[in-house]
């Protein structure tokens, strides 16, 4: 009887102890497994949004918070399971999720903004390339200017290809290089053109005087170097305009023999050549150098602008064999043979030939003022 009571008491104690232990285990804190998964997922989403690049510091904070959470979890695992406390771990999880979400949002915004900036920048550079093609490409620019332009064009293409393939970092890098090259070449070309146009008011006066001279039915030729045109005026009206090709270094006045520049000034036809007398189909020889050219030539020699032994040059003509789409002469004005036939018939020895830089002002030519 005594043994039975003791057994019942023992069993009762064990049951109670087990029940107590079970309640304790049940009530014991559980590791936040789902929350840890969520933290990892939020980091992953931030990474997909390229937060490592575009919200680097916020993403780093999220990553550090996640690492702290893992360290915290490992530390708690060292304690007996009934004595663990996951408060700090939960805190780090919350920070991870919050910072990762912040980084994802920030990255999205920055990516969008960087993308639209790049798109606008590329569009602007394309317009600048177009400006170069329209106004500067045919100018006799120093080789470093055109080289910079072409390098810039290639760099811009590289930026566009990287952008198409969603490699924004590389696209931005190439874009910046393209921007530097294109801006530099455009600005140098614009400065050269601007310096040349300082003579514009004189050109305008020369052109007006030439047109006025044609009032009494006399024919006058006006060569507009920038427009690459050769126009015949009569009774103040342009009766024919021909496309013209010029000397390789046509921008600027002729200074000496061999500079391949087309002279600027008031001249007249001194000889009409055809057949065996010219190798350029037909030609109209003009009186370069005139008195003004000789005076300027001497001044340039004195000021050391040209060598003391330099020759002034001669044999400047309006001739045929043009229409190559290039400026290729040594300083002459070349027309297509058909046009040369027409001009040859229209003019005579003594016809005035006025060669100017440009009738149109620079802001009309480039669509903006040079000071802009």
């Amino acid at each position, binding site marked *: 009887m005594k043994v039975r009571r003791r057994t019942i008491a023992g069993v009762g104690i064990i049951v109670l102890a087990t029940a107590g232990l079970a309640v304790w285990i049940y009530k014991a804190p559980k590791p936040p*497994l789902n929350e840890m998964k969520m933290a990892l997922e939020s980091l992953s989403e931030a990474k997909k949004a390229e937060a490592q690049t575009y919200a680097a510091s916020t993403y780093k904070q999220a990553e550090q918070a996640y690492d702290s959470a893992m360290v915290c979890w490992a530390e708690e695992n060292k304690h007996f399971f009934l004595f663990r406390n996951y408060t700090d771990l939960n805190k780090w999880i919350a920070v991870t999720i919050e910072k990762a979400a912040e980084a994802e949002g920030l990255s999205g915004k920055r990516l969008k903004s960087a993308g639209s900036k790049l798109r606008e920048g590329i569009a602007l550079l394309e317009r600048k390339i177009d400006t170069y093609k329209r106004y500067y490409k045919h100018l006799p620019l120093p080789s470093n200017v*055109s080289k910079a332009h072409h390098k810039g064009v*290639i760099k811009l*293409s590289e930026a566009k290809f990287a952008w198409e393939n969603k490699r924004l970092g590389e696209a931005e890098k190439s874009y910046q290089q393209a921007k530097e090259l294109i801006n530099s070449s455009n600005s140098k070309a614009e400065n050269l053109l601007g310096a040349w146009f300082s003579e514009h008011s004189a050109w305008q006066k020369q052109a007006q005087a030439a047109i006025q001279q044609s009032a009494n039915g006399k024919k006058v030729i006006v060569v507009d170097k920038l427009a690459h045109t050769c126009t015949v005026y009569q009774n103040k009206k342009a009766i024919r305009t021909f496309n013209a090709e010029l000397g390789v270094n046509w921008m600027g006045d002729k200074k000496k023999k061999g500079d391949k520049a087309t002279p600027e000034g008031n001249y007249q036809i001194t000889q009409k050549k055809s057949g065996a007398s010219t190798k350029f189909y037909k030609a109209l020889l003009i009186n370069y150098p005139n008195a003004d050219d000789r005076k300027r030539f001497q001044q340039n020699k004195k000021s050391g602008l040209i060598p003391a032994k330099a020759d002034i040059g001669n044999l400047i003509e309006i001739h045929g064999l043009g229409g190559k789409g290039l400026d290729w002469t040594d300083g002459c004005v070349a027309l297509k043979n058909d046009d040369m036939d027409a001009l040859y018939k229209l003019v005579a020895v003594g016809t005035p030939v006025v060669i100017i830089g440009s009738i149109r002002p620079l802001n009309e030519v480039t669509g903006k003022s040079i000071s802009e």
Partner: protein
Amino acid sequence: MRTKFLTLIAALSVAVLLSSCGKVPQAEIDAANAAIEAAKTAGADVYVTADFTALQDSMSAVTQSVEAQNGKLIKNYSKVTEQLAVVNQLAAEVTTKTEARKEEVKLEVAALQTEVANLLAQNNELVAQAPKGKEGAAALEAIKGDIGVVEASIADVTTQVAADQLLPALDKAKAAKEKAVALNAELTEVIAKYSSNRKK
């Protein structure tokens, strides 16, 4: 009473024994990390970015599973070992995919290099046909200069390929081709104008 006490001690010992029977599969973890590192060295983070991110996430999930088992009274790492095998497999696949993508890019770059080389040869021939002497040789110097820029660009492509910078090399090769094609058109136009004028 003494017997029951001994039984309790024995039960506790079994529990302690059970809790320490599962061991962290450190060798497998190290192998998986090495496989991920190998994928990165192959360029997975550059050429197959999304796959590489997924691989890293898988490994992070495994680390969480390890920690979850570490916290249990009775540890069992068999699922972790299975997960690690999957990570290893995934890492190998990502490495293979990276190599394949790199090979694809290399072939594309090589094809573009050949195309550009042909275009440049064609352009140099066109320059040779263009007006000579007074009739334009000097003006063609500018176009020759442009061809030089493309040649320099394609030489950079070779350097980049050698340095394993395949994607920038691909961009450069595409850009060089675009410019070479434009120059070709420009030269053809100049020569056509020249030829038509000569016939007159």
